[in-house]
């Protein structure tokens, strides 16, 4: 998901309150919509992004970063300094794991820029090997995300019907 969970909840609640409910003319449908609103307001403080996939992401990133370290050992120019996150501490919440995942992704971006800029100075095929390793890890994550994503409703969203 691209947006934060808090903003998504706030946005849905606001859309229901300010746009949808005032436009519902049927009383029964309006009372159902108020039920949805009530549920959302009570769900908001009780839910967080699923920890499992985030945990998997960070574990795979750390494995990948160890592989990158091996691929870039004694290589000049030296790759970007490794990330401060070397292991996943236990008992973190999703809100704590998310920034860690992002820091590791930022490091992977730096490595990609470094590999691209130094392609001709690295041993033959090394830049491509690093890129392929990063793409494999990222692709696995994207595949999982796509599997979880419902087919888009762009037509309905555009037409409003």
């Amino acid at each position: 998901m691209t947006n934060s969970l808090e903003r998504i909840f706030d946005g849905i609640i606001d859309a229901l309150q300010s746009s949808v409910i005032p436009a519902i003319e049927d009383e029964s449908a309006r009372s159902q919509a108020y039920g949805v609103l009530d549920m959302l307001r009570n769900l908001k403080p009780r839910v967080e992004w699923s920890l499992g996939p985030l945990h998997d992401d960070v574990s795979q990133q750390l494995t990948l970063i160890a592989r990158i370290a091996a691929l870039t050992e004694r290589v000049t120019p030296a790759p970007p300094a490794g990330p401060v996150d070397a292991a996943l501490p236990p008992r973190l919440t999703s809100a704590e794991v998310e920034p860690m995942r992002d820091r590791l992704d930022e490091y992977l971006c730096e490595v990609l820029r470094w590999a691209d800029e130094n392609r001709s100075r690295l041993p033959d095929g090394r830049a491509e090997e690093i890129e392929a390793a990063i793409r494999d890890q990222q692709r696995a994550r994207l595949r999982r995300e796509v599997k979880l994503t419902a087919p888009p409703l762009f037509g309905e969203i555009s037409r409003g019907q």
Partner: protein
Amino acid sequence: MLDGDAVTRSLAGFLRRQTGSDVAIGGLRRYTVGFSWITYGFEATWRDSTGPRHEKLILRLGPPTGLFAPYRAFPQFASLKALEGSAVPVPRVYWYGEELDTFAAPFFICEKVEGEAPLPWVSEGQEAFPPATREPLAEQFVAALAAIHGFQWRGTPLERLGAGVEESSAASREITFWEELLDRWSFRPYPMLEWAISWLKAHRPVAPRISLVHGDYRTGNFLEKSGRITAILDWELVHLGDPLEDLGWICMRSFRGRSPYMCHLIERSRLYERYQELSGIPVDPRAVTFYEAFGTFKLAVIHVGAARCFEDGRFKDLRMAALGVHLPRLIMQIEGTIEGKT
């Protein structure tokens, strides 16, 4: 932004100043189409030197909190004005303004053209058009594109849409423009987009010529009535550049799903062949693939921008967040296009 009553009052005041006559505004309706500019339809009645006038018109506003804000109305207005009377069907434009004192947003007013905008998003396995409709629409779709790309923009106000762009720099300028937007909008890093940017920079084609480029030429951005394309719309991303950029955009997976027809209209080989015949511009399939990948990257950046706009609370439209949800699919499509898997 202004509410409906305020838009009506502002319209009446603006049109009174332009026409020198009292103007009655009726039937104001906000359309749901589009995620960036806001579109209103309305009817205006006034009197000029020819007698009483009654026109169905469109008002488009670039909201100060919108996705690409701050907006400028000039590129769209100038393009539509320049193409008036050409082989490209476009709505007739009347007025535009960049100042914020009329509608609190840049705006332009044009005629309301009759027709419906067919959308490219249909259920998987379905086609947007039956064959009898598809083939004549495809011919008009390609012919209008060839006419846009053949338009002699030199010596017209459209020169301002890409000062200094050359055949060798057209692709670089676009990559830089969208890379900067990604930097501005991202709220987390995307390694796969970083890799895509490197690939795009390493594979930039040289443009066959510098043309007027629509920038969002696809099914969904034209009006159709009784099998005839009545208007090419949504010129928000118009610029001067490589004409094959529009061809790559047409071929994107996002606008065809699994259909063999690009934009649900025409098979890829036939598109290349017919475009080349009508425009006289040689089609290098590798360049089109490059622009298909670039276009998918550009669409991904737009999705990031939409999510950012929503996250910051600048635009409360929940549809922006809904776009962001589909970012992973687009990022996978960039890689798939680069690898020839679409």
